[in-house]
C-alpha cells in the first residue's frame, strides 16, 4: 500500500445521539458538503466511549477516529461529556507516547444545531489525516497481510 494522490483516509465517527448525530443529520438536510471519508456510529452519549473502542477501530484499519458529543454543560445526561473528555485526553496522550500519531484521535463538540460545524470538522480532520500516512500501525510486514477487517 503506497501513499498516492488517491489516498482517502477512512474515519470512524462515534457521535452522541443527542447532539452530534443530530448535528450530522442537520448537515445532511441543510445540504452541507463534507468529505465522504467518515463512517458514523451512533452512540448513546460520548461518555459511552471506552478507549477500547478507539484502539479497536485503529486495530481493524481505520485511519482516524472521531469522538463527538455535546458541548460542555449541554450533556443530556449532565456529565457524560465531562467523563469522555477525561478519558479522551488520557488516551490521546498515552497512545501518542506509544507511537500513534496524534492526528488519528480526534474529538469535537458539535451541538444539534451545528450542521455547519460538523461539516467543517469532518473536512478538517480528513485533510489532517491526508497529511500523514495511511494507518499501517497493525499491519504485519512478515506475512504482508493487512490487519483483520
Amino acid at each position: 500500500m503506497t501513499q498516492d494522490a488517491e489516498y482517502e483516509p477512512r474515519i470512524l465517527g462515534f457521535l452522541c445521539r443527542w447532539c452530534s448525530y443530530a448535528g450530522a443529520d442537520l448537515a445532511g438536510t441543510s445540504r452541507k458538503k463534507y468529505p465522504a471519508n467518515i463512517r458514523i456510529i451512533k452512540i448513546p452519549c460520548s461518555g459511552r466511549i471506552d478507549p477500547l473502542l478507539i484502539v479497536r477501530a485503529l486495530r481493524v484499519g481505520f485511519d482516524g477516529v472521531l469522538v463527538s458529543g455535546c458541548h460542555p454543560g449541554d450533556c443530556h445526561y449532565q456529565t457524560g461529556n465531562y467523563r469522555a473528555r477525561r478519558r479522551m485526553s488520557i488516551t490521546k496522550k498515552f497512545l501518542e507516547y506509544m507511537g500513534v500519531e496524534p492526528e488519528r484521535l480526534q474529538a469535537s463538540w458539535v451541538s444539534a444545531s451545528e450542521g455547519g460545524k460538523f461539516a467543517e470538522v469532518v473536512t478538517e480532520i480528513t485533510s489532517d489525516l491526508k497529511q500523514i500516512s495511511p494507518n499501517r500501525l497493525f499491519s504485519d510486514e512478515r506475512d504482508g497481510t493487512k490487519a483483520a477487517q
Partner: protein
Amino acid sequence: MSETEQKLRSEARDLLEKGRVNHIIGYEAGSLKFSTTPLITSDKEDTDRLVINPFINNNLSVFLGEVGGKAGIVARGCDARSIVSLIQDKQLAREDVFIIGVPCGGIIDLDKVEKLTGLDRDEIDDIAWQGDKAAVTIGGARKEFPAKEVLTDDCLSCEPPDPREYDLLIGEVGPLVTDGELGRSKIKELEAMTPEQRWEFWKSEFSRCIRCYACRQVCPACFCNRCFSEETEPAWISPLPRWQDNLVFQAIRMIHVAGRCTNCGECERACPVNIPLRSLSKKMEEIVDELFHYRAGTDKEAPPLMAAYQPEEAEDFIR
C-alpha cells in the same frame, strides 16, 4: 532477626490472638537465597515466619480481595497507596483491613548486585541497608554500594516510600535515596524518538509477549471480575498471542488502570519476558498528574480519577 521483624511478629501474633484480624498477609523467606514470598495465614504460629528485609518485593494488596474477613496486611509505601486506591474504588472497606505499615528503605535489585559484584547470589553472604548504602558481605569482606546503584528501578522514583495510611507503624522512617530522573531514564529515551520509532519499539517488545496475563493477575488495580480480553461477543482481541493483540491488550489495560495504578512495578517484575511495562505505567502516572494533578492512592476520601471531573479542564485537543 532485626528489631523491626521481631516487633512485626509479636504484633501479628497479637492481632490474631485477640481476634482483631482473621488473616495476616505478609512476607516469609522464599526458597532461593534472599528471595521472599507472600505468607497468608490465620494461624498465629505462622507469624514466626514473617520477615522484613530489603527483598520484600510483592505488592500484597492484590490478595486483599481474595481472603475473606478482616485482614492484617504488611504494607510499604507503594502497597499502602494501592490499598487506599482500592478503598477509593470501593473494592475494600477501610474497616476490613488492618494496615501494618513498614517504612521502606527501598527494595534491592539482586540482578544489579550480581552485576556489580560479578558474583552469583549464592556466593554472597549478606546484603543489608547501612544508612543510604547497601552493605554486601562476601566471605567476611564487606563492600558498600550507593543506594542508587542497587535499588530497583521502581524504587528509584518512589514517593513517598513510607506508608501514609496505616493502623500501626513498625520501625522508623529511614533514608531512601530516590532519583526521579534516573528512574525515568527509559521514558526519556522513548520520548526522544519519533512516533514511528516508538511504535517499532513497542511492537518488538510485544512480539515477545506470550499473553500469560501475569501482569494483570499481580496488579492490585486490575480487579474486574471479567476482563475485556476474555470477552467473546465481541472478541475485542484475538486469543492468539500475536503482537497486535498483545499491544492492544496492554495499552487498554494501562488506560483502564489510569488513576488507580500506583506504579508499584509489579507488572514488570512479574513479566516472564521482561517487557518494560513500567515505562508505560510510569508515563501514565505522569500524564494523569500533569493533566489532573491526581496521584493514585494518596487520598482515600477523594473520588476515583475516572469517576470525577471538573467543568473546566484541558480540552485544547477538542475541536
